[in-house]
Protein backbone atom coordinates (compact mmCIF):
# COMPACT_ATOMS: atom_id res chain seq x y z
CA UNK A 1 0.00 0.00 0.00
CA UNK A 2 2.67 2.42 1.10
CA UNK A 3 4.86 1.75 -1.93
CA UNK A 4 1.94 2.36 -4.25
CA UNK A 5 1.02 5.64 -2.49
CA UNK A 6 4.59 6.91 -2.67
CA UNK A 7 4.79 6.42 -6.41
CA UNK A 8 1.57 8.34 -6.94
CA UNK A 9 2.00 11.43 -4.79
CA UNK A 10 4.32 13.34 -7.10
CA UNK A 11 2.38 12.90 -10.41
CA UNK A 12 -0.93 13.68 -8.69
CA UNK A 13 0.57 16.82 -7.07
CA UNK A 14 1.95 18.02 -10.40
CA UNK A 15 -1.42 17.62 -12.11
CA UNK A 16 -3.14 19.38 -9.20
CA UNK A 17 -0.72 22.34 -9.46
CA UNK A 18 -1.27 22.54 -13.21
CA UNK A 19 -5.04 22.58 -12.74
CA UNK A 20 -4.78 25.33 -10.08
CA UNK A 21 -2.52 27.43 -12.33
CA UNK A 22 -4.90 27.14 -15.29
CA UNK A 23 -7.83 27.86 -12.97
CA UNK A 24 -6.24 31.09 -11.67
CA UNK A 25 -5.44 32.28 -15.21
CA UNK A 26 -9.04 31.46 -16.19
CA UNK A 27 -10.37 33.31 -13.16
CA UNK A 28 -8.50 36.45 -14.13
CA UNK A 29 -9.57 36.22 -17.77
CA UNK A 30 -13.24 35.58 -16.96
CA UNK A 31 -13.59 38.18 -14.19
CA UNK A 32 -11.48 41.00 -15.68
CA UNK A 33 -14.12 42.44 -18.13
CA UNK A 34 -16.73 42.78 -15.37
CA UNK A 35 -14.19 44.30 -12.99
CA UNK A 36 -13.04 46.79 -15.67
CA UNK A 37 -16.67 47.76 -16.32
CA UNK A 38 -17.31 48.15 -12.60
CA UNK A 39 -14.22 50.31 -12.07
CA UNK A 40 -15.05 52.51 -15.08
CA UNK A 41 -18.55 53.19 -13.81
CA UNK A 42 -17.36 53.82 -10.24
CA UNK A 43 -14.52 56.03 -11.55
CA UNK A 44 -11.92 53.90 -9.75
CA UNK A 45 -8.36 53.66 -11.04
CA UNK A 46 -6.26 50.79 -9.75
CA UNK A 47 -2.72 49.56 -10.08
CA UNK A 48 -2.44 46.31 -12.04
CA UNK A 49 -1.67 44.37 -8.81
CA UNK A 50 -4.72 45.88 -7.16
CA UNK A 51 -6.81 45.04 -10.23
CA UNK A 52 -5.61 41.45 -10.20
CA UNK A 53 -6.52 41.10 -6.51
CA UNK A 54 -9.96 42.59 -7.24
CA UNK A 55 -10.67 39.93 -9.89
CA UNK A 56 -9.83 37.28 -7.31
CA UNK A 57 -12.11 38.60 -4.58
CA UNK A 58 -15.40 39.43 -6.29
CA UNK A 59 -18.42 38.39 -4.17
CA UNK A 60 -20.25 36.96 -7.21
CA UNK A 61 -17.51 36.20 -9.73
CA UNK A 62 -18.12 34.73 -13.18
CA UNK A 63 -15.53 32.10 -12.27
CA UNK A 64 -14.62 31.94 -8.58
CA UNK A 65 -10.95 31.60 -7.67
CA UNK A 66 -9.82 28.31 -6.11
CA UNK A 67 -9.11 29.92 -2.74
CA UNK A 68 -12.61 31.44 -2.66
CA UNK A 69 -14.12 28.01 -3.22
CA UNK A 70 -11.76 26.42 -0.69
CA UNK A 71 -12.70 29.01 1.96
CA UNK A 72 -16.40 28.51 1.25
CA UNK A 73 -16.10 24.71 1.45
CA UNK A 74 -14.08 24.93 4.66
CA UNK A 75 -16.47 27.37 6.36
CA UNK A 76 -19.62 25.57 5.35
CA UNK A 77 -18.22 22.15 6.24
CA UNK A 78 -16.42 22.70 9.53
CA UNK A 79 -17.62 26.00 10.97
CA UNK A 80 -21.38 25.50 10.79
CA UNK A 81 -23.72 23.35 12.82
CA UNK A 82 -24.66 20.38 10.64
CA UNK A 83 -28.32 21.19 11.17
CA UNK A 84 -27.79 24.62 9.59
CA UNK A 85 -29.27 25.26 6.16
CA UNK A 86 -25.89 26.60 5.06
CA UNK A 87 -23.92 23.54 6.12
CA UNK A 88 -22.56 21.49 3.23
CA UNK A 89 -22.54 18.47 5.52
CA UNK A 90 -26.28 18.88 5.97
CA UNK A 91 -26.93 19.11 2.23
CA UNK A 92 -24.55 16.27 1.46
CA UNK A 93 -26.34 14.18 4.10
CA UNK A 94 -29.72 14.79 2.46
CA UNK A 95 -28.36 13.77 -0.94
CA UNK A 96 -26.49 10.82 0.57
CA UNK A 97 -29.67 9.45 2.15
CA UNK A 98 -31.55 9.31 -1.14
CA UNK A 99 -28.41 8.06 -2.96
CA UNK A 100 -28.02 5.13 -0.57
CA UNK A 101 -31.72 4.23 -0.53
CA UNK A 102 -31.88 4.44 -4.33
CA UNK A 103 -28.67 2.43 -4.67
CA UNK A 104 -29.94 -0.29 -2.33
CA UNK A 105 -33.23 -0.62 -4.22
CA UNK A 106 -31.40 -0.39 -7.57
CA UNK A 107 -28.90 -3.09 -6.67
CA UNK A 108 -31.63 -5.40 -5.40
CA UNK A 109 -33.73 -4.74 -8.51
CA UNK A 110 -30.73 -5.25 -10.81
CA UNK A 111 -29.88 -8.60 -9.19
CA UNK A 112 -33.51 -9.67 -9.40
CA UNK A 113 -33.72 -8.77 -13.10
CA UNK A 114 -30.43 -10.60 -13.80
CA UNK A 115 -31.64 -13.73 -12.01
CA UNK A 116 -34.82 -13.61 -14.09
CA UNK A 117 -32.95 -13.12 -17.35
CA UNK A 118 -30.53 -15.98 -16.61
CA UNK A 119 -33.24 -18.43 -15.57
CA UNK A 120 -36.08 -17.69 -17.98
CA UNK A 121 -35.50 -17.70 -21.72
CA UNK A 122 -38.60 -15.58 -22.28
CA UNK A 123 -37.26 -12.81 -20.04
CA UNK A 124 -33.87 -13.07 -21.74
CA UNK A 125 -35.49 -12.40 -25.09
CA UNK A 126 -38.01 -9.76 -24.02
CA UNK A 127 -36.46 -7.72 -21.23
CA UNK A 128 -33.03 -6.63 -22.44
CA UNK A 129 -34.16 -4.23 -25.22
CA UNK A 130 -36.47 -2.48 -22.74
CA UNK A 131 -33.69 -2.13 -20.21
CA UNK A 132 -31.42 -0.54 -22.80
CA UNK A 133 -34.24 1.72 -24.02
CA UNK A 134 -34.91 2.82 -20.44
CA UNK A 135 -31.36 4.16 -20.19
CA UNK A 136 -31.63 6.26 -23.34
CA UNK A 137 -34.38 8.47 -21.89
CA UNK A 138 -32.84 11.67 -20.44
CA UNK A 139 -33.18 11.43 -16.69
CA UNK A 140 -33.68 15.20 -16.51
CA UNK A 141 -36.92 14.83 -18.49
CA UNK A 142 -38.06 11.81 -16.55
CA UNK A 143 -37.31 13.01 -13.01
CA UNK A 144 -40.17 15.57 -12.68
CA UNK A 145 -42.61 13.03 -14.11
CA UNK A 146 -41.61 10.44 -11.53
CA UNK A 147 -42.01 13.00 -8.72
CA UNK A 148 -45.41 14.20 -9.99
CA UNK A 149 -46.81 10.71 -10.63
CA UNK A 150 -45.71 9.46 -7.23
CA UNK A 151 -47.04 12.59 -5.52
CA UNK A 152 -50.41 11.85 -7.14
CA UNK A 153 -50.48 8.54 -5.27
CA UNK A 154 -49.38 10.30 -2.06
CA UNK A 155 -45.75 9.22 -2.23
CA UNK A 156 -43.56 12.16 -1.33
CA UNK A 157 -40.29 12.81 0.46
CA UNK A 158 -37.24 10.58 0.28
CA UNK A 159 -38.59 7.67 -1.75
CA UNK A 160 -39.47 9.45 -5.05
CA UNK A 161 -36.00 11.01 -5.15
CA UNK A 162 -34.40 7.68 -4.32
CA UNK A 163 -36.32 6.04 -7.17
CA UNK A 164 -34.57 8.34 -9.63
CA UNK A 165 -31.27 6.98 -8.30
CA UNK A 166 -32.72 3.50 -8.62
CA UNK A 167 -33.58 4.18 -12.23
CA UNK A 168 -29.94 4.94 -13.02
CA UNK A 169 -28.30 2.32 -10.79
CA UNK A 170 -30.26 -0.87 -11.52
CA UNK A 171 -28.99 -1.02 -15.11
CA UNK A 172 -25.24 -1.54 -14.57
CA UNK A 173 -26.00 -4.06 -11.81
CA UNK A 174 -28.42 -5.99 -14.04
CA UNK A 175 -25.97 -6.11 -16.96
CA UNK A 176 -23.01 -7.03 -14.72
CA UNK A 177 -24.93 -9.71 -12.86
CA UNK A 178 -26.23 -11.33 -16.06
CA UNK A 179 -22.61 -11.68 -17.12
CA UNK A 180 -21.58 -12.84 -13.64
CA UNK A 181 -24.32 -15.45 -13.26
CA UNK A 182 -23.38 -16.82 -16.67
CA UNK A 183 -19.64 -16.80 -15.92
CA UNK A 184 -19.25 -20.40 -14.58
CA UNK A 185 -17.49 -22.66 -17.09
CA UNK A 186 -19.34 -25.55 -18.69
CA UNK A 187 -17.11 -27.92 -16.72
CA UNK A 188 -18.38 -26.46 -13.42
CA UNK A 189 -21.99 -26.75 -14.55
CA UNK A 190 -21.35 -30.34 -15.65
CA UNK A 191 -19.89 -31.03 -12.22
CA UNK A 192 -23.11 -29.85 -10.57
CA UNK A 193 -25.04 -32.10 -12.95
CA UNK A 194 -22.99 -35.16 -11.97
CA UNK A 195 -24.04 -34.46 -8.37
CA UNK A 196 -27.67 -34.24 -9.48
CA UNK A 197 -27.77 -30.77 -7.91
CA UNK A 198 -31.07 -28.88 -8.06
CA UNK A 199 -31.37 -25.55 -9.89
CA UNK A 200 -31.46 -23.74 -6.55
CA UNK A 201 -28.29 -25.50 -5.37
CA UNK A 202 -26.52 -24.66 -8.62
CA UNK A 203 -27.56 -21.04 -8.15
CA UNK A 204 -26.51 -20.64 -4.52
CA UNK A 205 -23.35 -22.74 -4.63
CA UNK A 206 -22.03 -21.93 -8.10
CA UNK A 207 -23.66 -19.08 -10.02
CA UNK A 208 -24.00 -16.60 -7.17
CA UNK A 209 -20.47 -16.94 -5.72
CA UNK A 210 -19.03 -16.84 -9.25
CA UNK A 211 -20.83 -13.56 -9.90
CA UNK A 212 -19.49 -11.70 -6.85
CA UNK A 213 -16.54 -9.98 -8.63
CA UNK A 214 -18.94 -8.86 -11.38
CA UNK A 215 -21.39 -7.58 -8.76
CA UNK A 216 -18.81 -5.36 -7.09
CA UNK A 217 -17.49 -4.00 -10.39
CA UNK A 218 -21.01 -2.99 -11.43
CA UNK A 219 -21.86 -1.68 -7.95
CA UNK A 220 -18.97 0.76 -8.28
CA UNK A 221 -20.53 2.17 -11.45
CA UNK A 222 -24.02 2.02 -9.92
CA UNK A 223 -23.21 3.99 -6.77
CA UNK A 224 -21.71 6.83 -8.80
CA UNK A 225 -24.79 6.79 -11.05
CA UNK A 226 -27.00 6.81 -7.93
CA UNK A 227 -25.35 10.00 -6.70
CA UNK A 228 -25.84 11.65 -10.09
CA UNK A 229 -29.46 10.51 -9.99
CA UNK A 230 -30.00 11.96 -6.52
CA UNK A 231 -28.49 15.32 -7.48
CA UNK A 232 -30.40 15.46 -10.77
CA UNK A 233 -33.54 14.44 -8.89
CA UNK A 234 -33.18 17.50 -6.68
CA UNK A 235 -32.80 19.95 -9.58
CA UNK A 236 -36.21 20.07 -11.30
CA UNK A 237 -38.33 18.99 -8.38
CA UNK A 238 -38.27 21.99 -6.10
CA UNK A 239 -36.21 20.24 -3.46
CA UNK A 240 -35.21 22.59 -0.63
CA UNK A 241 -32.24 20.63 0.63
CA UNK A 242 -29.50 18.56 -0.91
CA UNK A 243 -26.50 19.20 -3.14
CA UNK A 244 -28.77 19.58 -6.17
CA UNK A 245 -30.96 22.11 -4.38
CA UNK A 246 -27.84 24.02 -3.32
CA UNK A 247 -26.64 24.07 -6.95
CA UNK A 248 -30.00 25.34 -8.17
CA UNK A 249 -30.29 28.02 -5.48
CA UNK A 250 -26.76 29.14 -6.29
CA UNK A 251 -27.61 29.53 -9.95
CA UNK A 252 -30.79 31.53 -9.17
CA UNK A 253 -28.84 34.08 -7.13
CA UNK A 254 -25.58 33.99 -9.13
CA UNK A 255 -23.78 32.62 -6.07
CA UNK A 256 -21.10 30.98 -8.15
CA UNK A 257 -18.88 30.31 -5.15
CA UNK A 258 -21.69 28.36 -3.48
CA UNK A 259 -22.26 26.40 -6.68
CA UNK A 260 -18.61 25.41 -6.92
CA UNK A 261 -18.59 24.50 -3.25
CA UNK A 262 -21.63 22.28 -3.79
CA UNK A 263 -19.90 20.62 -6.74
CA UNK A 264 -16.84 19.93 -4.60
CA UNK A 265 -19.07 18.49 -1.88
CA UNK A 266 -20.68 16.26 -4.51
CA UNK A 267 -17.33 14.94 -5.72
CA UNK A 268 -16.14 14.28 -2.18
CA UNK A 269 -19.33 12.27 -1.52
CA UNK A 270 -18.78 10.37 -4.79
CA UNK A 271 -15.19 9.62 -3.84
CA UNK A 272 -16.24 8.36 -0.41
CA UNK A 273 -19.00 6.17 -1.85
CA UNK A 274 -16.83 4.55 -4.53
CA UNK A 275 -14.06 4.00 -1.98
CA UNK A 276 -16.54 2.39 0.41
CA UNK A 277 -17.71 -0.04 -2.31
CA UNK A 278 -14.09 -0.77 -3.20
CA UNK A 279 -13.25 -1.52 0.42
CA UNK A 280 -16.26 -3.80 0.81
CA UNK A 281 -15.22 -5.55 -2.40
CA UNK A 282 -11.69 -6.18 -1.07
CA UNK A 283 -12.93 -7.51 2.25
CA UNK A 284 -15.47 -9.85 0.66
CA UNK A 285 -13.18 -11.11 -2.09
CA UNK A 286 -10.38 -11.70 0.37
CA UNK A 287 -12.70 -13.89 2.42
CA UNK A 288 -13.55 -15.69 -0.82
CA UNK A 289 -9.92 -16.61 -1.35
CA UNK A 290 -8.89 -13.97 -3.85
CA UNK A 291 -5.15 -13.59 -4.32
CA UNK A 292 -3.78 -10.63 -2.42
CA UNK A 293 -2.44 -8.40 -5.13
Amino acid at each position, binding site marked *: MRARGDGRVLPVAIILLAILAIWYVGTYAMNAPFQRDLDRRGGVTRSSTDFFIATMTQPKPTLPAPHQVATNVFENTFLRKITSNRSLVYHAGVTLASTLLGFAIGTALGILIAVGIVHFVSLDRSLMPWLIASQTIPILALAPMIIVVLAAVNLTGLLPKALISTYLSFFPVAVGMVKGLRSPDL*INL*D*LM*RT*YHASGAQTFWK*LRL*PASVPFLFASMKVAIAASLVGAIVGELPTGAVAGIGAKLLAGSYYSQTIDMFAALIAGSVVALLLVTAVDLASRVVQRRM*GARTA
Partner: protein
Amino acid sequence: MHNPASQLQPASPAVPPAVSARGLGLTFETNDGPVQALADVDLTINKGEFVSFIGPSGCGKTTFLRVIADLEQPTQGAISVNGMSPQQARERRAYGYVFQAAALYPWRTIENNVALPLEIMGFSAADKRARIARTLDLVNLTGFKKKFPWQLSGGMQQRASIARALSFDADLLLMDEPFGALDEIVRDHLNQQLLELWERTSKTICFVTHSIPEAVYLSTRIVVMSPRPGRVTDVIESDLPRDRPLDIRETPAFLAIAARVRDGLRAGHSYDE
Protein backbone atom coordinates in the same frame (compact mmCIF):
# COMPACT_ATOMS: atom_id res chain seq x y z
CA MET B 1 -15.66 -62.86 -21.89
CA HIS B 2 -13.14 -63.62 -19.17
CA ASN B 3 -13.82 -61.61 -16.06
CA PRO B 4 -10.68 -60.29 -14.36
CA ALA B 5 -12.70 -58.80 -11.52
CA SER B 6 -13.87 -62.22 -10.35
CA GLN B 7 -11.05 -62.55 -7.84
CA LEU B 8 -12.27 -59.38 -6.13
CA GLN B 9 -15.98 -59.81 -6.21
CA PRO B 10 -17.57 -63.16 -7.02
CA ALA B 11 -19.56 -62.59 -10.19
CA SER B 12 -23.13 -63.62 -9.57
CA PRO B 13 -26.16 -63.01 -11.78
CA ALA B 14 -27.61 -60.77 -9.05
CA VAL B 15 -24.80 -58.21 -9.43
CA PRO B 16 -25.31 -56.20 -12.61
CA PRO B 17 -22.19 -55.01 -14.44
CA ALA B 18 -21.02 -51.48 -13.67
CA VAL B 19 -21.50 -50.49 -17.30
CA SER B 20 -23.08 -52.40 -20.15
CA ALA B 21 -23.37 -50.91 -23.64
CA ARG B 22 -25.07 -52.63 -26.60
CA GLY B 23 -24.88 -51.18 -30.10
CA LEU B 24 -24.36 -47.73 -28.60
CA GLY B 25 -24.13 -44.79 -31.01
CA LEU B 26 -24.22 -41.04 -30.69
CA THR B 27 -24.57 -38.54 -33.53
CA PHE B 28 -24.10 -34.84 -32.86
CA GLU B 29 -26.08 -32.47 -35.05
CA THR B 30 -23.69 -29.64 -35.89
CA ASN B 31 -23.85 -26.71 -38.29
CA ASP B 32 -21.65 -28.69 -40.69
CA GLY B 33 -24.06 -31.61 -40.67
CA PRO B 34 -24.24 -34.69 -38.45
CA VAL B 35 -21.04 -35.94 -36.80
CA GLN B 36 -20.96 -39.53 -35.61
CA ALA B 37 -19.06 -39.42 -32.33
CA LEU B 38 -19.79 -43.04 -31.37
CA ALA B 39 -20.86 -46.00 -33.49
CA ASP B 40 -21.84 -49.50 -32.50
CA VAL B 41 -20.06 -49.73 -29.16
CA ASP B 42 -20.51 -53.06 -27.37
CA LEU B 43 -18.79 -53.14 -24.01
CA THR B 44 -19.32 -54.59 -20.55
CA ILE B 45 -17.38 -53.29 -17.58
CA ASN B 46 -17.63 -55.44 -14.48
CA LYS B 47 -17.47 -54.18 -10.93
CA GLY B 48 -13.94 -53.75 -9.58
CA GLU B 49 -12.30 -53.42 -13.00
CA PHE B 50 -9.87 -50.68 -13.98
CA VAL B 51 -10.65 -49.99 -17.63
CA SER B 52 -8.70 -47.48 -19.72
CA PHE B 53 -9.99 -45.96 -22.93
CA ILE B 54 -7.27 -44.99 -25.35
CA GLY B 55 -7.31 -43.50 -28.82
CA PRO B 56 -6.53 -40.32 -30.74
CA SER B 57 -8.65 -37.21 -30.27
CA GLY B 58 -12.05 -37.51 -31.88
CA CYS B 59 -12.31 -41.27 -31.19
CA GLY B 60 -15.22 -40.74 -28.80
CA LYS B 61 -13.52 -41.90 -25.60
CA THR B 62 -14.57 -38.80 -23.67
CA THR B 63 -18.01 -38.92 -25.27
CA PHE B 64 -18.45 -42.52 -24.09
CA LEU B 65 -17.51 -41.49 -20.54
CA ARG B 66 -20.00 -38.61 -20.74
CA VAL B 67 -22.73 -40.99 -21.93
CA ILE B 68 -22.09 -43.21 -18.89
CA ALA B 69 -22.35 -40.06 -16.74
CA ASP B 70 -25.62 -38.96 -18.42
CA LEU B 71 -23.91 -35.77 -19.60
CA GLU B 72 -24.66 -36.79 -23.23
CA GLN B 73 -27.64 -38.73 -24.57
CA PRO B 74 -26.99 -41.67 -26.95
CA THR B 75 -28.91 -41.63 -30.22
CA GLN B 76 -28.67 -45.37 -30.93
CA GLY B 77 -28.42 -48.54 -28.88
CA ALA B 78 -28.72 -49.10 -25.16
CA ILE B 79 -26.58 -48.55 -22.11
CA SER B 80 -27.02 -49.42 -18.46
CA VAL B 81 -25.05 -48.27 -15.43
CA ASN B 82 -25.32 -50.53 -12.37
CA GLY B 83 -28.31 -52.13 -14.11
CA MET B 84 -30.10 -48.75 -14.38
CA SER B 85 -30.37 -46.08 -17.04
CA PRO B 86 -27.56 -43.51 -16.87
CA GLN B 87 -30.07 -40.92 -15.71
CA GLN B 88 -31.29 -43.07 -12.82
CA ALA B 89 -27.67 -43.84 -11.94
CA ARG B 90 -26.80 -40.15 -11.94
CA GLU B 91 -29.83 -39.33 -9.82
CA ARG B 92 -28.71 -41.98 -7.32
CA ARG B 93 -25.21 -40.49 -7.33
CA ALA B 94 -23.74 -43.75 -8.58
CA TYR B 95 -20.49 -42.29 -9.85
CA GLY B 96 -17.83 -39.68 -9.17
CA TYR B 97 -16.50 -37.78 -12.18
CA VAL B 98 -12.99 -36.32 -12.47
CA PHE B 99 -12.61 -33.83 -15.31
CA GLN B 100 -9.55 -32.91 -17.37
CA ALA B 101 -9.22 -29.73 -15.32
CA ALA B 102 -9.50 -29.84 -11.55
CA ALA B 103 -12.53 -27.49 -11.72
CA LEU B 104 -12.20 -26.55 -8.06
CA TYR B 105 -14.23 -23.57 -6.94
CA PRO B 106 -11.72 -20.77 -6.35
CA TRP B 107 -13.78 -19.24 -3.55
CA ARG B 108 -13.79 -22.46 -1.52
CA THR B 109 -10.91 -23.85 0.51
CA ILE B 110 -9.72 -27.37 -0.33
CA GLU B 111 -11.81 -28.92 2.42
CA ASN B 112 -14.87 -26.93 1.38
CA ASN B 113 -14.36 -28.02 -2.22
CA VAL B 114 -14.40 -31.63 -1.04
CA ALA B 115 -17.48 -30.77 1.01
CA LEU B 116 -19.38 -29.47 -2.05
CA PRO B 117 -20.95 -32.78 -3.17
CA LEU B 118 -21.59 -33.69 0.47
CA GLU B 119 -23.51 -30.43 1.00
CA ILE B 120 -25.53 -31.00 -2.14
CA MET B 121 -26.33 -34.57 -1.20
CA GLY B 122 -27.32 -33.56 2.34
CA PHE B 123 -24.81 -35.42 4.50
CA SER B 124 -24.88 -34.61 8.24
CA ALA B 125 -22.24 -32.25 9.61
CA ALA B 126 -20.41 -34.96 11.53
CA ASP B 127 -20.47 -37.34 8.56
CA LYS B 128 -19.21 -34.54 6.36
CA ARG B 129 -16.24 -33.84 8.62
CA ALA B 130 -15.32 -37.51 8.79
CA ARG B 131 -15.53 -37.96 5.02
CA ILE B 132 -13.48 -34.84 4.29
CA ALA B 133 -10.77 -36.01 6.70
CA ARG B 134 -10.76 -39.53 5.25
CA THR B 135 -10.66 -38.58 1.54
CA LEU B 136 -8.09 -35.81 2.02
CA ASP B 137 -5.93 -38.34 3.85
CA LEU B 138 -6.43 -40.77 0.96
CA VAL B 139 -4.92 -38.26 -1.51
CA ASN B 140 -2.31 -36.96 0.98
CA LEU B 141 -3.68 -33.42 1.21
CA THR B 142 -4.59 -33.30 4.91
CA GLY B 143 -2.14 -30.48 5.64
CA PHE B 144 -3.62 -28.34 2.84
CA LYS B 145 -7.30 -28.40 3.75
CA LYS B 146 -7.41 -24.72 4.73
CA LYS B 147 -5.66 -23.56 1.54
CA PHE B 148 -7.39 -22.05 -1.46
CA PRO B 149 -6.95 -23.83 -4.82
CA TRP B 150 -4.57 -21.23 -6.28
CA GLN B 151 -2.16 -21.87 -3.43
CA LEU B 152 -1.71 -25.48 -4.62
CA SER B 153 0.23 -26.92 -7.55
CA GLY B 154 -1.61 -28.39 -10.54
CA GLY B 155 -0.99 -31.95 -9.33
CA MET B 156 -2.30 -31.17 -5.86
CA GLN B 157 -5.37 -29.49 -7.33
CA GLN B 158 -6.11 -32.58 -9.38
CA ARG B 159 -5.67 -34.75 -6.26
CA ALA B 160 -8.17 -32.48 -4.47
CA SER B 161 -10.63 -32.98 -7.30
CA ILE B 162 -10.17 -36.76 -6.97
CA ALA B 163 -10.83 -36.47 -3.23
CA ARG B 164 -14.00 -34.55 -4.10
CA ALA B 165 -15.12 -37.33 -6.46
CA LEU B 166 -14.40 -39.97 -3.80
CA SER B 167 -15.99 -38.19 -0.85
CA PHE B 168 -19.52 -39.51 -1.32
CA ASP B 169 -18.39 -43.10 -1.89
CA ALA B 170 -19.82 -43.82 -5.29
CA ASP B 171 -18.42 -47.20 -6.33
CA LEU B 172 -17.82 -46.07 -9.93
CA LEU B 173 -15.13 -43.51 -10.71
CA LEU B 174 -15.12 -41.88 -14.17
CA MET B 175 -11.87 -40.10 -14.98
CA ASP B 176 -11.45 -38.04 -18.15
CA GLU B 177 -7.72 -37.53 -18.82
CA PRO B 178 -7.27 -36.36 -15.24
CA PHE B 179 -3.48 -36.18 -15.49
CA GLY B 180 -3.26 -34.97 -19.09
CA ALA B 181 -2.15 -31.46 -18.18
CA LEU B 182 0.49 -32.52 -15.66
CA ASP B 183 4.20 -33.09 -16.17
CA GLU B 184 5.51 -36.63 -16.35
CA ILE B 185 7.07 -36.80 -12.89
CA VAL B 186 3.88 -35.66 -11.18
CA ARG B 187 1.92 -37.96 -13.44
CA ASP B 188 4.00 -41.04 -12.45
CA HIS B 189 3.45 -40.21 -8.82
CA LEU B 190 -0.30 -39.76 -9.22
CA ASN B 191 -0.58 -42.97 -11.26
CA GLN B 192 1.00 -44.87 -8.39
CA GLN B 193 -1.29 -43.24 -5.88
CA LEU B 194 -4.31 -43.97 -8.03
CA LEU B 195 -3.44 -47.67 -8.21
CA GLU B 196 -3.02 -47.80 -4.42
CA LEU B 197 -6.34 -46.07 -4.01
CA TRP B 198 -8.07 -48.49 -6.37
CA GLU B 199 -6.51 -51.39 -4.45
CA ARG B 200 -7.76 -50.04 -1.12
CA THR B 201 -11.26 -48.98 -2.17
CA SER B 202 -12.02 -51.69 -4.78
CA LYS B 203 -13.93 -49.20 -6.91
CA THR B 204 -14.66 -49.60 -10.59
CA ILE B 205 -12.60 -47.06 -12.55
CA CYS B 206 -13.10 -45.91 -16.14
CA PHE B 207 -10.05 -43.94 -17.19
CA VAL B 208 -9.68 -41.96 -20.41
CA THR B 209 -6.12 -41.28 -21.57
CA HIS B 210 -4.06 -40.82 -24.67
CA SER B 211 -0.89 -42.16 -23.13
CA ILE B 212 -0.11 -45.81 -23.93
CA PRO B 213 2.23 -46.35 -20.92
CA GLU B 214 -0.34 -44.81 -18.58
CA ALA B 215 -3.12 -47.04 -19.92
CA VAL B 216 -1.01 -50.22 -19.66
CA TYR B 217 0.37 -49.35 -16.25
CA LEU B 218 -3.02 -48.70 -14.66
CA SER B 219 -5.50 -51.02 -16.28
CA THR B 220 -6.88 -54.49 -15.97
CA ARG B 221 -8.37 -53.96 -19.42
CA ILE B 222 -7.57 -51.50 -22.20
CA VAL B 223 -10.21 -50.42 -24.69
CA VAL B 224 -8.63 -49.19 -27.93
CA MET B 225 -10.79 -46.76 -29.91
CA SER B 226 -10.46 -45.12 -33.31
CA PRO B 227 -12.04 -42.06 -34.89
CA ARG B 228 -14.45 -41.27 -37.75
CA PRO B 229 -16.73 -42.73 -36.54
CA GLY B 230 -15.67 -43.27 -32.93
CA ARG B 231 -15.71 -47.02 -32.29
CA VAL B 232 -14.03 -49.75 -30.26
CA THR B 233 -11.39 -51.53 -32.35
CA ASP B 234 -9.78 -53.76 -29.74
CA VAL B 235 -10.12 -54.76 -26.09
CA ILE B 236 -6.88 -55.92 -24.50
CA GLU B 237 -6.78 -57.86 -21.23
CA SER B 238 -3.76 -57.12 -19.08
CA ASP B 239 -2.11 -60.07 -17.34
CA LEU B 240 0.21 -57.86 -15.30
CA PRO B 241 0.15 -58.57 -11.55
CA ARG B 242 -1.94 -56.29 -9.38
CA ASP B 243 1.08 -55.07 -7.50
CA ARG B 244 2.80 -52.79 -9.99
CA PRO B 245 5.93 -50.87 -9.08
CA LEU B 246 6.79 -48.08 -11.52
CA ASP B 247 9.70 -50.07 -13.01
CA ILE B 248 7.27 -52.74 -14.20
CA ARG B 249 7.12 -50.49 -17.25
CA GLU B 250 10.50 -51.80 -18.40
CA THR B 251 9.54 -55.50 -18.18
CA PRO B 252 8.95 -57.52 -21.37
CA ALA B 253 5.39 -58.37 -20.27
CA PHE B 254 4.55 -54.65 -20.00
CA LEU B 255 6.18 -53.81 -23.32
CA ALA B 256 4.33 -56.66 -25.01
CA ILE B 257 0.98 -55.25 -23.90
CA ALA B 258 2.03 -51.75 -24.93
CA ALA B 259 2.95 -53.11 -28.36
CA ARG B 260 -0.49 -54.73 -28.67
CA VAL B 261 -2.14 -51.42 -27.80
CA ARG B 262 -0.03 -49.69 -30.42
CA ASP B 263 -0.96 -52.36 -32.97
CA GLY B 264 -4.60 -51.89 -32.07
CA LEU B 265 -4.32 -48.15 -32.63
CA ARG B 266 -2.58 -48.72 -35.97
CA ALA B 267 -5.24 -51.21 -37.06
CA GLY B 268 -7.83 -48.50 -36.36
CA HIS B 269 -5.91 -46.16 -38.67
CA SER B 270 -5.13 -43.92 -35.73
CA TYR B 271 -1.68 -43.22 -37.10
CA ASP B 272 -2.96 -42.22 -40.55
CA GLU B 273 -2.63 -38.61 -41.47
